[in-house]
């Protein structure tokens, strides 16, 4: 039996755990009792804070103008672990749709965590609290593309744990975020090393959700390096785990990614199957906005591979779904992709008609006026000389920050 198997067996078998434990030389019982008391006291304190704090953070954030959030760091009600856990949740909720707000909250949390008196909790718990706040800050900075600052923040977060070998799980999560930052900085080798180390820990502590997440990040990393065959193998392995752990949402994401791998290998039939599987699962889960997003991604890859007709069909399906969901921002972005293809094909009449539709939709949905003006400018360019695909791409890049829908399916 291998060493690791042996330990795995211990985790599953109460009688072997008992026998294994009995063989160890007994240690100082007074010291052991003291440790148990300290642990129970820390546990009771954390639990009672969690019970008493309820939704204090959501309330304070709601009742305080955003410009005054920094002064929340002085609020007595927020200066404890439970409130910091809630702040961390608030950061996470905002990362995708409003990273600036997420960063503002993360700054408050970091300010509180860094100034909590060291005697408030056991040193390890203080280190965990501080590293979590700094990790959230790093993540928000990553979403904002401020990668150097994000890297500095995650390094500091990691250093807060360096004196504590037992902060295993916290450290692995930090490595995962660090890997994502490094990947965005194009430091692929280092990112891969980090992610592998984190994955080993997630597997060993049986955190299958984060193990899958780390795997998806790893696969994306391989994809970015055009190592599609390796990415595909990894996604296939992860898919088995997602199926066995009944994580349908990850299954959907993995099918989507396998679809992209199949496209890169020129296997459009397999790609279609994977994209369809992904869409079916997102639909089953009720994540309706993910369906057109998957279609949009698939379409872009197909068009990139000169499968124009197949791509256009998926783009139109995606746009139709976004409109049906009243997600006019993303419907408009989808339309711009269609316009780009139409202009490339010389079909300026349809391209012009579509710009008109987008202008109406943006105006009705209250999308920022600058985005509407950009589309109007594109329309007049089409009228004047037919425009170019490059011009459409420029407009797309300009409009994108204004048009990404706030409504999230999940």
């Amino acid at each position, binding site marked *: 039996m291998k060493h690791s198997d042996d330990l795995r067996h211990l985790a599953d078998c109460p009688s072997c755990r008992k026998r294994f434990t009995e063989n160890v030389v007994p240690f100082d019982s007074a010291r052991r009792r003291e440790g148990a008391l300290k*642990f129970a006291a820390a546990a009771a304190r954390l639990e009672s804070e969690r019970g008493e704090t309820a939704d204090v953070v959501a309330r304070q954030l709601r009742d305080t103008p955003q410009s005054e959030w920094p002064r929340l760091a002085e609020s007595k009600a927020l200066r404890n672990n439970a409130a910091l856990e809630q702040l961390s949740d608030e950061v996470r909720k905002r990362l995708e749709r409003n990273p600036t707000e997420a960063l503002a909250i993360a700054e408050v949390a970091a300010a509180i965590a860094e100034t909590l008196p060291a005697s408030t909790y056991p040193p390890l718990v203080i280190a965990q609290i501080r590293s979590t706040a700094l990790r959230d800050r790093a993540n928000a900075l990553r979403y904002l593309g401020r990668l150097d600052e994000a890297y500095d923040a995650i390094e500091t977060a990691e250093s807060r744990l360096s004196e504590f070998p*037992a*902060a295993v799980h916290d450290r692995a999560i930090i490595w995962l975020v660090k890997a994502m930052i490094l990947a965005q900085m194009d430091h692929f080798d280092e990112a891969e090393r980090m992610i592998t180390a984190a994955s080993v820990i997630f597997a*060993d502590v*049986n955190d*299958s959700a984060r193990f899958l997440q780390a795997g998806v990040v790893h696969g994306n990393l391989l994809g970015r390096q055009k190592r599609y065959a390796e*990415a595909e193998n990894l996604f296939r392995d992860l898919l088995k785990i997602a199926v066995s752990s009944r994580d349908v949402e990850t299954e959907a*994401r993995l099918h989507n990614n396998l679809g*992209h791998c199949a496209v890169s290998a020129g296997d459009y039939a397999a790609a279609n199957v994977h994209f369809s599987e992904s869409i079916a699962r997102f639909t089953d889960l009720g994540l309706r906005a993910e369906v057109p997003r998957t279609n949009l991604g698939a379409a872009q890859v197909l068009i990139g591979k000169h499968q124009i007709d197949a791509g256009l069909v998926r783009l139109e399906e995606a746009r139709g779904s976004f409109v049906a969901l009243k997600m006019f921002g993303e419907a408009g972005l989808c339309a711009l992709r269609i316009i780009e293809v139409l202009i490339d094909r010389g079909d300026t009449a349809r391209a012009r008609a579509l710009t008109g539709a987008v202008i109406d939709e943006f105006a009705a949905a209250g999308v920022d006026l600058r985005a509407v003006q950009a589309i109007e400018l594109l329309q007049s360019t089409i009228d004047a000389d037919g425009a170019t*695909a490059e011009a459409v791409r420029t407009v797309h890049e300009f409009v994108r920050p204004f048009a990404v829908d706030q409504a999230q399916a999940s």
Partner: protein
Amino acid sequence: MFAGPAFHPSQEIQAPIAPPCDVDDLAFDELYEGNLSLLVAIAVRKFQVPEVDAEALAHEVFLSYLKRKNEIRQLHPWLIGAICHACRYFWRQNGRRTDQLDQELAMLRPDPDSIAIFDLLPSQLAVREALDALSPRYAQILRMRYYEGYTIREIADYLGVTAKYTQKLVGKCLRMAEQMYNAAPARKKT
């Protein structure tokens, strides 16, 4: 044509979707008392962490559990995984803290083990050869007894068997080593 997009990103880091293990019903001190010895045993026996450090590591594993308890699905795999990685980290840190050998001092005070190296080397090589020929379990028992200085009682504890049986086992291992060494093709000829 526009470039294809990246893969579908993973979700943002969040707590695992599966429900956490039900530890609310367990009193925290029971949880601690019921598992501390196991974690210390793993640290000491599997990773050779000194006992006092092993206790400190096990205590910290419990503390780190408190912050993550709502997302832990199965307690024992988590505790065991955590103590194993904590031990590895401990040794990485401990290794770094080892003082570098002073070269000048080393020249003045040679390693006592290497003083009679030319006399001892042939027998050391013979022992190594004998150990290599044994099964891993037998080789480990002899190493523990004759290299690492474990008592019969300690080896018995390690193996989870009686001292009497361990004594027999050590004798058997020695006989086996002798047979294997003598049966080696090179020595048959001599």
